[in-house]
């Protein structure tokens, strides 16, 4: 384990740990799953450090890796949750009160298709360009640009339609609604 390797990995986590934790936070089914996924992403980066590109391309590489890790996690989680609930004894805790505006945003996001939501949040929350979004989700930059344009338009429409009286469902993860995607 060389010093250079450790230093490079530390620099990678310092520069992009925040981004990957945030991304996993809104894409995973629960906060603990998000932390597990983010840790898996950086473990993968450590193992394949020689394959991680230099500069800002490393950020895109990490997002793309996180996307795959989360997809795998969702598949295995379906089974594990069922087991946990089967073994569980009694439910008790209550969810915290949501911030009204955040809840409204959350509800509007839930009403988007999964693909729209993903490109919108990669742009607006993660600050990725259409070209970078294309690299993460596996499409051309021009396609990503078109999807982003439509996603923004749809989000605005849903947000305005919901208004301040919009129904609150902050306790559902953004991932929960994986309905039909828009063309």
């Amino acid at each position: 384990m060389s010093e250079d390797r450790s230093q490079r990995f530390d620099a990678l986590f310092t520069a992009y740990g925040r981004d990957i934790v945030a991304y996993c936070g809104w894409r995973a089914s629960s906060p603990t799953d998000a932390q597990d996924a983010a840790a898996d992403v950086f473990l993968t980066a450590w193992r394949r450090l020689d394959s991680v590109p230099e500069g800002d391309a490393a950020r895109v590489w990490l997002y793309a890796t996180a996307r795959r890790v989360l997809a795998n996690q969702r598949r295995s989680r379906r089974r594990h949750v069922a087991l946990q609930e089967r073994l569980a004894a009694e439910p008790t805790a209550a969810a915290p009160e949501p911030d009204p505006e955040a809840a409204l945003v959350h509800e509007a996001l839930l009403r988007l298709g999964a693909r729209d939501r993903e490109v919108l949040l990669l742009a607006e929350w993660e600050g990725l360009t259409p070209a970078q979004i294309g690299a993460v989700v596996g499409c051309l930059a021009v396609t990503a640009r078109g999807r982003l344009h439509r996603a923004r338009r749809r989000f605005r429409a849903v947000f305005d339609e919901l208004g301040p009286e919009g129904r609150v469902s902050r306790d559902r993860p953004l991932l929960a609604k994986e309905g039909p995607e828009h063309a």
Partner: protein
Amino acid sequence: MPESIDALHRANPRAEAGFAATIDAVGAEVRLRIAAAGARDEPRVRHVRPRRRILGLSAAGVALLAAAAVAVFLTVDSSGVTPGVENAAAAIKKAATLTAASAERSGTVQVRITHGGQLWASKVIRWNGNDVEINDLSRKPSAGSPLLVVNGLLYGHDPQHEGWVQLGPVSNIDPGSGTTPTEQLDAIREDVGGATLRRMVAAMSASGLTTEDRSDGSTVYSGTVAAGQIARETGFKEGQTIRVFPFGYVAHGAAANAASLLDTAVTVAAGGVIRKLAVTWGTWTYTVTYSSLGSTPRIAAPEHATSLLKERMRAVHER
């Protein structure tokens, strides 16, 4: 910029309270996983004893490599931490790795929850290879207890039958539910020495540790851990978040609040394996006691078990 997009920016999870702490927790978890992975990813170590090849390395080799890897990465975030705490953190992380390796083939855990000193719930879980036995020792044991999975067949008790009932292949009874032998074992091993224990140990190390050496050679490491690192959120039920302790007990009170800091103590035996885990909140205590890791006997299928499938078929024919 439209109001909706402004609102979207303000809802960015980076602005949420606790986000910085989450990054720290992930950082600690990453270093721990790298340490553990470093132990597993070094197949050319010379000190491997053939008897333990099933684990890839001997338990001692795992511990040594994990300690070495942890020592390297401790330099990343140990500013402001005293050398004694660093040593304690390394020792407890090493113990978690060693415990996971020891639990790989077989083991036994007793889980107890007490309230005001009185037993509230308890179960003993034994596993050997792919076979599992779950025995509920609570005052009001859950239906079906004890539960056995041997050679992929599920055995339990049914109020309508005396003795053991063979309920058939686990994978056929509830396909995709997470109750196949492999999935049950995966969950148990994750709780015994895998992700669950490593996450708790990482959180304890980050918050500062106190140590107490006992006369029997064991050491008790004490610290605080956010409840969310112990009782994982598994979903929602009846509009409420469910957090479940390792081995399946639903958290309640302060333990159900992810941000609550719970007093946690980990007892590491003289041999370096974790022997006991204790979490306390208010008048409640949750303990997990490990034993016979790697030496729990084979689990036998019950003799003369009634086949539920055959019983049902006979009942149909008699009508």
